[in-house]
């Protein structure tokens, strides 16, 4: 289940293992962190790198493999064999009986955040080795949601796997932990603000614990909401007291969390007394973040929203209960990535039926505005041969140094390339809004499709666009575009 604190537990285990000298390596998969952390194929090389620090003789054996790079391929089972098992076994043989350390533990968190295929490949490749023989000094701890593609290979294997499900922990035990967490949070808040602890009551802690009902993320969000330095927590605590949460087990367990998210957004304009354009900015910042599936630089958001960096910064601060606010937010020139506190929030934002009414009623127009702004950026920036004149049709991706692409294709252009169509698909639900945009869309489609496809290819975004095109909502674009074409013939370039 989301929000139960798997990654926090994994982090705590890693800290404990590290203190005891038993942490061999760790990898925290993340759909949102970027840098390939949602690709299980990156796991093995990272683990090998970390193990090299801990296992005597491993570096030398790994070096033998790396010196023959043609041996290493993208297949996970081969990577495991060449980068882990082979160096590990050889290092053990070379050291003889002198190698008597306790088994090292390798922690891999969030396999469910990886693509289905790569996560399943990793699990199956791992089990394959354990089916034949156990690596003498290595054990694995995998933490994941119980997705079918991960759970089935583990259930079917003959390997002696110890499984532990967080759902099996008694609710009372989890809620006791949450209560302690909330209590400590309140005390810490009072200490930092120099207040006595009389601004809250014991009943408040009980209430938040009950509302959270085993979801740590709920408690964490409430504490962030209360800790906003621009407001006295007492007024916000009253909002929390007024929430009518009736958490129910199963699929509806997130209902209280969604109610909290909705309340936070609902009060953005009312309780915080923001101007309408500030609320609009906040709405569009959230849509950009939720659409991207990965952190977005603050200057990219300013480009997309056609506003000042300062305005985006202030907006991010107003969303600090659901968005991670980096400590360097005030720095002008640093490319600061922004992301949500928890992965459940983008899902909430994109599920329009869960949003407060005043958010929901503007969402189509927001997507249309963003789509048109993306199109404008694309038309201003796209050109044939984005990577320069030296890159010809015969230039393979392998001929390009990895840093060239992010250098030549800005993050703003990458966002616009990848998401203009998705914004358009969301906006297409509003037929009249689409009709107003017909000329701009037709101009782009007529003149820039090939350059757009080139940019998609360089930035590995073809798959993402194909997914968008596969969605039923894109059928709406196509239908509306036909409608537009007949009603308002576009002039094109």
């Amino acid at each position, binding site marked *: 289940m989301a929000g139960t604190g798997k990654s926090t537990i994994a982090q705590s285990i890693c800290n404990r293992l590290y203190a005891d000298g038993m942490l061999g390596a760790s990898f925290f998969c993340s759909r949102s962190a970027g840098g390939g952390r949602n690709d299980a194929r990156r796991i093995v090389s990272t683990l090998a790198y970390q193990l090299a620090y801990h296992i005597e003789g491993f570096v030398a054996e790994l070096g033998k493999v790396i010196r023959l790079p043609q041996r290493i391929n993208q297949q996970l089972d081969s990577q495991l064999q060449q980068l882990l098992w082979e160096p590990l076994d050889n290092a053990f043989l070379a050291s003889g009986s002198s190698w008597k350390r306790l088994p090292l533990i390798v922690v891999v968190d969030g396999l469910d955040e990886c693509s289905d295929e790569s996560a399943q490949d990793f699990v199956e490749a791992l089990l394959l080795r354990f089916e034949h023989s156990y690596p003498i000094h290595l054990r694995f701890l995998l933490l994941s949601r119980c997705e079918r593609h991960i759970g089935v290979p583990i259930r079917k294997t003959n390997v002696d796997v110890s499984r532990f499900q967080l759902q099996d922990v008694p609710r009372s035990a989890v809620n006791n932990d949450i209560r302690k967490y909330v209590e400590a949070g309140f005390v810490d808040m009072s200490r930092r603000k120099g207040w006595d602890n009389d601004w809250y009551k014991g009943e408040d802690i009980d209430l938040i614990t009950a509302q959270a009902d085993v979801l740590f993320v709920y408690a964490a969000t409430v504490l962030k909401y209360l800790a906003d330095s621009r407001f006295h927590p007492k007024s916000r605590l009253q909002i929390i007291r007024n929430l009518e949460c009736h958490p129910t087990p199963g699929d509806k367990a997130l209902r209280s969390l969604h109610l909290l998210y909705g309340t936070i957004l609902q009060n953005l304009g009312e309780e915080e007394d923001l101007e309408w354009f500030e609320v609009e900015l906040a709405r569009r910042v959230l849509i950009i973040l939720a659409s991207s599936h990965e952190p977005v630089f603050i200057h990219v958001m300013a480009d997309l929203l056609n506003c000042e960096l300062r305005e985006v910064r202030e907006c991010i601060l107003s969303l600090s209960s659901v968005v991670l606010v980096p400590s360097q937010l005030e720095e002008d020139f640093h490319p600061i990535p922004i992301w949500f506190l928890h992965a459940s929030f983008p899902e909430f934002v994109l599920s329009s039926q869960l949003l407060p009414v005043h958010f929901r009623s503007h969402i189509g127009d927001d997507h249309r505005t963003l789509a048109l702004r993306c199109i404008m950026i694309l038309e201003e920036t796209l050109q*044939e041969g984005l990577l320069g004149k030296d890159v010809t049709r015969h230039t393979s991706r392998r001929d390009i140094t990895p840093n060239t692409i992010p250098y030549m294709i800005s993050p703003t252009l990458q966002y616009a390339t990848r998401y203009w169509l998705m914004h358009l698909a969301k906006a297409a639900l509003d037929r009249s809004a689409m009709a107003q945009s017909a000329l701009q869309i037709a101009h782009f*489609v007529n003149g820039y*499709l090939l350059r757009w496809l080139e940019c998609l290819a360089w930035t590995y975004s073809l798959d993402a666009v194909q997914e968008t095109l596969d969605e039923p909502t894109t059928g709406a674009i196509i239908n509306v575009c036909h409608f537009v074409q007949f009603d308002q*013939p576009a002039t094109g370039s």
Partner: protein
Amino acid sequence: MFVISFNLINLPRAHDPFFNQTLDPQIGHALKDVHNLIKRSGNTLVQYPMEIYYSALVLLPKSVCLPLARERHNRALPTVIRGLPETWEPPERSLLAHSLFISADKPRAHWLSRKSSCGTMIHEWNIRTNAETQIPVNIHSIGHAPTITKLANNGYFSYSPESCLLSFVAFSSSAGSNPEPRLWDLSNANVLPLHSETTLLHASDNGEYACVLHAGHPQVYLVDVKLNSCHWLPLSVTEPSYSGLACVTFSSDAKLLAIHPRYVAQFLSF
């Protein structure tokens, strides 16, 4: 009856009306075309993004809504003469051809097919009359050496209508699961090792050159057998399905190249 569709592709001519055609802004169709293009050629485009302006355009189906083509003007690309598919629908899967030969001095193309029911056949297609004749061939009579136990992908070889078969892409018998493609010159029994990802090739009549296709690379390579050097050919291949390329050949004067994806053949001139 075998059914095969051929594409004849020529260099673009100046003032070709195709390039000056004004197209209606069929946005919806264009997005559908983009969808199909990504599905068919996405993997290749990721490796060679600039091919979007070249091969991907040359081999688009006829029915494609072409706001894309607006960007083609003034670009020297081969044009399709014959055989381009009408739509994005998959072509008829009626023939698995394994070798293709086009004659420069005669208006004919030859290819070889294998079907369990019919055995191995050499097909001759008269480009002018569109007539097709079939000639049975005994695969075991064409120099199957005992040291070669498996031919690449069921036996790609180049064919000379004047004499006999000239070359094979062969796997070593001892390599097990690791293929070791090589050019095997039947005239002198020399073996030239090729890149491990080579999937098929064709040797020229005089035995001095070979066209080579590599898995994962959309370009066609020209191999100088004597020097063991490799050159790019000016036309690359991305459509309709690179992974399905079955054979490649060129004429003796090196002015015509024929490629054969799994189900459709294209003839290119360069």
